[in-house]
């Protein structure tokens, strides 16, 4: 059974009082839940959050399934999200993604055998000037943009992260 650690529970409770309405704390609470459950959210996490925040489970689940940054399934240590929208596609993001997937022998959305990398496509990440680019986020929720990528520079970054 998933249990929130004490300081996570404390953080959730402070979030409850930080905003104008209790319900506004659902998004930050889901981030905390995701961090506690190494990078993805399961129904148990939502039951736990619902108990702590006294908000109906279906409302929290609605918010969880609506937004893309809450991961539905488990992710590797590094979650690679390559932007696929127009400006990046014009600068060859499809070829870049194909190269990364071949190198890591995974299909879109899968995790490598050693659990290090998960590769997914993301929609516009707001860094079109430095296309093609990718965002790598860790299981604790921290993330970093890697821009102006070529096949080699991307692979060097991935090797550095291993």
């Amino acid at each position: 059974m998933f249990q929130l650690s004490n300081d996570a529970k404390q953080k959730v409770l402070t979030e409850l009082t930080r905003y104008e309405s209790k319900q506004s704390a659902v998004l930050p609470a889901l981030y905390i839940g995701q961090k506690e459950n190494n990078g993805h959210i399961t129904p148990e996490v939502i039951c736990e959050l619902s108990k702590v925040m006294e908000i109906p489970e279906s409302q929290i689940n609605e918010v969880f399934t609506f937004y893309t940054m809450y991961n539905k399934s488990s992710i590797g240590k590094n979650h690679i999200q390559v932007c696929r929208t127009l400006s990046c596609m014009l600068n060859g993001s499809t070829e870049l993604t194909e190269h990364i997937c071949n190198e890591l022998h995974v299909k879109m959305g899968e995790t490598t055998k050693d659990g290090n990398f998960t590769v997914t496509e993301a929609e516009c990440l707001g860094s079109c000037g430095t296309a093609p680019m990718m965002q790598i986020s860790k299981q604790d929720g921290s993330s970093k943009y890697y821009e102006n990528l070529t096949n080699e520079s991307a692979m060097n970054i991935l090797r550095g992260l291993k």
Partner: protein
Amino acid sequence: MSASEINTSANEIKYLSEFYHLPEFKTLEGYKKNGGYIQLPKALKMQPQEIIDLVKASGLRGRGGAGFATGMKWGFLPKNNEPRYLLCNADEGEPGTFKDRMMMEKAPHQLVEGMIISGFAIGSKKSYIYVRGEYSDSINALEVAIAEAYKAGFLGRNILGSGFDHDMDVYRGAGAYICGEETGMISSLEGLKGQPKLKPPFPAIQGYLKKPTIVNNVETLAAVKYILRDGAAGYRKYGTEKSAGTKLFSLSGNIVKPGNYEVPLGFSLKDMIYGLGGGTKPGKKLKAVIPGGSSAPVLTADEAERANLDYENLAQMGTMLGSGAIIVIDDSKCMVECLANLMHFYHHESCGQCTPCREGTGWLDKITTSILAGRGRLSDIELLLKVADNMKGKTICALSDAAALPVLSFVSKFRDEFEFYVREGKSKVKGVVYKTPSYQSDHSKLGAH
């Protein structure tokens, strides 16, 4: 485009982005050294209505995408002293736009000061900056800046002894383009799904938690400080009569020097692409330009060379300024593939609340994908136009228009490419049918995201 016609003297006017190159501008001291927090005490001594009239006189229009006159928007607030909110829309989901990110990372205090002055003008005690979840650097920069502002007494109770107290907070989004829409962002701030609310009632009357709310873009709020500094006439020095002031344009796509350029409104698109942007890549010719972010109708090459970057001129050309994201497409790219890419974006981002948009974006995505896979039929082109036309203007928010406008403009202006693709089963430009990338797992081949 022969080289002689490019007007090399037309250059950037670094009005807002004057000190962005200084790394110290990011900190409180560096910001103060370069003209920071001088307008705030001046504003706190003025009457709030004076500031609103000043903004109205300056002709400042919303920089987020709609271009609605900011002064007028502030004027809609009810005149009672009911609590009201100021929200800064930093969601920046429009494909091609990356100006807010630069502003927040390079000059967070510029936004904070602008928001305190605007908060004072509309009499709001609480304001939020809604930043999209992916911008973790911008969020950290803003949180540091707000903490510094609290420490320096520019925020909190009785700011600078003026009796005005104001709190500010950053709210982190979680990845949804729809939260860029005014009421979508308000729903997300309320901790719900980012689904737009029914209008009327408009947010100025009943917005965040059913209280009057003003939502402005980062650039709009940052400009308020400069209006105070130079007065309405000073601000109107740049830009045209109806579109006053300067604007940050994000240049991207097949261009030599992509990036953010601050130019006065009315600046010619041709100079932007060939002058500041360095023109298309060597050996490639310009084919199409999307002037205002992915939801703006596309311009063909020669239309682009006649267009000026301001609200009225682009509207006459049948497109819109939008968020000022210029996406350049050269002749080596296939327009059908570009449209399919955009349709996949809108299919993925539609919030699913209204039926025409939820099912329409899905349908458009499937039709363009089947054309791209060589399974298109001649009637599909007509169908694309009909679906897009009947989706436009029928929903609560403008995402259905944002999905329909690219379809209407791409298909009507580049119809030959679509018909070639349907008849020959391969791209007119690339000569070969679009190969679904190998990493695509099978379920996504059917256009479902």
